[in-house]
């Protein structure tokens, strides 16, 4: 018994040791994650409320919505209005402001499993220096912390958290549902028995006593005449991206959040890039959060990618994302969105959030939009993410500054690896292992060719769909600046691994006829990408996959030419 316990203890120590070494190795691998971020300033808190001027990088604001502040505001109203007679109104906590500290990817997954909660990886009661959030440095080598505010009775995910503050949010209290919409409500004003008067004066008092009254006053207010902008308004707008190939085109499926302190309204851009959110009163800030339920685009390696819009009252937001991180994140988002929620030719989805696969439950896919196009290339690895407890994203895109179609195609490429990994995890892992670790170069080649030719097929199809079909450019070829003509214009000698072989079973082009000797002989056509996906199950290397395609679809007219096609590329 003792012996067994000893063995178990030794095993535990050993596993811990291995995990430690792996973790350290991952940190070494991800060293440039940190260096790509700029700036050295650390978070400096300044508690001067009077001018709300940010001396450092950020300013934690006195929170007008805390229950304490709201109670004080109500007390002030009662003191100044001896005939106050609203009897049935009480202030009690309606929401809680929370800080979650997930310890691993599984816990982040728990947070992200409820799409009604919007998380931010920065404080909601804080004003940041312009650009600070875009250039901040991770606090430590750890999973991000997440802030949110939820109704008091909301069942919370079982993830370590602390309550920063209990809140009372009048705008979300059904007691005030029937207050009048008044474009310019004068404040302070007398309050007797009117809910409308109480509502506006409560907000005014809460905001003014915390030094935040500019947030709710109209622009023409003066120190002697003040009005609250009280009209409900519905934020809306249109988001376009300046695509290097297609021009200014709509960003579809993007999540636009309208944030007013702790109230967050959500809108999703439609096919034209238009969005609408629920109503807000007063000033609110537009935020494009590059995240949907199944995936999240990261800014660099760690933080949630966001595009920050204006903090406005009753103004729509029409934005063309042109250049820099915003354009880059928009294109990565678009590829992921098209793959998850658009036309993917009947393929299974890439890994889905909270979906239970044969190997276990999958969490939200993180796509790191790395701001580089040098060093180690773009990649997908579930192992890298698993062993770092989610610290390292599964997908890394490193095409910053490259033409939009390449960024789009690379994202599709990496997500196609991810798809392969959930289609048949055992075979996928086997292929990856032999692709890189086998001592036999022929084995490495035959595995790697299958591993990489599959995503080449999907990226070609989906990139053509975007530019040729959706944006009606019939002469577009993948990729515009590389002249590889949908991977057809590449000699056999030049590329043995990233081959067109799988795509060649779909298209009707025979490279040998078009470009002559030196190019692949391709008499095969008529397969669908779905059929070719089906054949991935159980396939462990190039010719194994070939045999599965032939066995699964024995009646295809061009089946006799499949051997010849695969033989273009030798081990």
């Amino acid at each position: 018994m003792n012996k067994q316990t000893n063995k178990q203890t030794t095993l535990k120590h050993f596993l811990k040791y291995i995990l430690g070494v792996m973790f350290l190795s991952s940190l070494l691998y991800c060293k440039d994650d940190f260096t790509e971020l700029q700036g050295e300033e650390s978070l400096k808190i300044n508690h001067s409320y009077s001018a709300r001027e940010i001396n450092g990088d950020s300013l934690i604001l006195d929170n007008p919505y805390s229950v304490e502040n709201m109670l004080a505001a109500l007390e002030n109203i009662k003191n100044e209005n001896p005939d106050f007679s609203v009897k049935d109104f009480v202030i009690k906590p309606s929401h809680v402001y929370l800080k979650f500290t997930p310890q691993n990817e599984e816990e982040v997954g728990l947070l992200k499993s409820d799409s009604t909660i919007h998380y931010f990886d920065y404080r909601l009661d804080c004003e940041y220096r312009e650009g600070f959030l875009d250039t901040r440095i991770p606090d430590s080598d750890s999973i991000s912390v997440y802030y949110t505010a939820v109704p008091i009775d909301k069942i919370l995910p079982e993830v370590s958290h602390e309550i920063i503050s209990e809140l009372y949010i009048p705008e979300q209290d059904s007691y005030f549902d029937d207050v009048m919409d008044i474009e310019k409500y004068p404040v302070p004003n007398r309050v007797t028995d009117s809910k409308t008067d109480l509502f506006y004066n409560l907000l005014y008092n809460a905001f003014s006593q915390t030094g935040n009254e500019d947030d709710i006053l109209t622009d023409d207010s003066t120190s002697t005449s003040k009005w609250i902008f009280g009209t409900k308004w519905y934020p809306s707008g249109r988001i376009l991206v300046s695509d290097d190939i297609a021009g200014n085109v709509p960003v579809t499926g993007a999540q636009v959040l309208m944030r007013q302190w702790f109230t967050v309204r959500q809108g999703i851009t439609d096919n034209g890039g238009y969005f609408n959110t629920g109503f807000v009163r007063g000033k609110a800030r537009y935020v494009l959060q590059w995240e949907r339920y199944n995936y999240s685009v990261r800014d660099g390696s760690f933080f949630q990618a966001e595009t920050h819009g204006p903090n406005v009252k009753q103004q729509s937001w029409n934005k063309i994302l042109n250049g820099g991180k915003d354009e880059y994140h928009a294109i990565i988002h678009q590829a992921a969105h098209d793959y998850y929620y658009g036309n993917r030719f009947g393929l299974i989805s890439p890994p889905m959030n909270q979906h239970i696969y044969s190997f276990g439950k999958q969490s939200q896919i993180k796509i790191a939009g790395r701001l580089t196009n040098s060093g180690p290339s773009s990649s997908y690895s579930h192992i890298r993410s698993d062993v770092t407890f989610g610290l390292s994203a599964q997908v890394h895109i490193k095409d910053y500054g490259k033409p939009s179609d390449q960024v789009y195609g690379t994202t599709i490429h990496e997500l196609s690896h991810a798809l392969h990994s959930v289609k048949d995890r055992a075979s996928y892992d086997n292929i990856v292992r032999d692709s890189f670790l086998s001592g036999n170069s022929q084995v490495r080649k035959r595995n790697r060719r299958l591993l990489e030719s599959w995503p080449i097929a999907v990226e070609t199809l989906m990139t053509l769909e975007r530019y040729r079909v959706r944006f009606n450019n019939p002469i577009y070829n993948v990729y515009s600046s590389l002249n590889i003509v949908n991977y057809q214009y590449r000699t056999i000698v030049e590329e043995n691994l990233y081959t067109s072989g799988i795509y060649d079973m779909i298209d009707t082009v025979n490279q040998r006829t078009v470009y002559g000797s030196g190019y692949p002989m391709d008499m095969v056509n008529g397969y669908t990408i779905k059929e070719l996906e089906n054949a991935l199950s159980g396939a462990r290397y190039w010719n194994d996959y070939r045999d599965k395609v032939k066995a699964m679809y024995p009646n295809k007219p061009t089946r006799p030419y499949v051997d010849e096609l695969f033989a273009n590329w030798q081990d």
Partner: protein
Amino acid sequence: MLMNYLLTGKIKIMKTILLISFAFLMMRCGTDQGESIEYNFSITNSSGKTIKMIPYINGVKDTNYILTLTNGDTLNKKYTYRPPGAAGYSMTQFFPSNTDYVAVVYNNEKINIYSVYSVQCNTCPVISNNSFPIVFNENSRNLFNVNFNDGQIENYTITVDDFQNATDCGGNCY
């Protein structure tokens, strides 16, 4: 006993090293790893004449993009390939996307029209109303012949012989 302990200890250490090495290697089992490849392509004019290179896109002449090389001039393009995607480079990179023919005009005296395509291709775009012969890519002097398009360093030199063998256009090459 001591021997046994030493042996068992060594085996354990070896196992540990192997397992850690395996774990370390697994960490690097991401897709799309690979070396970058540097390409360096050039075109040199040694024909003795000033030449103009005019691309055709899907068979249509693009006069907005004409390359001019006086005798002795060299054009150079460099490219670094990084995975994912197909490695390789080609002489088409000197011209706009979808270029499929290039006319080399020698001082408006003679012309060669080189095709990206094989002579076998009967579905490829053609140049309409063209009276000059097309040099397909099987021809060893075609700019797009596989021999000038499948290495890391390629130099294509337009020679006096190329000029001699070009088609006379009687001062009406355009």
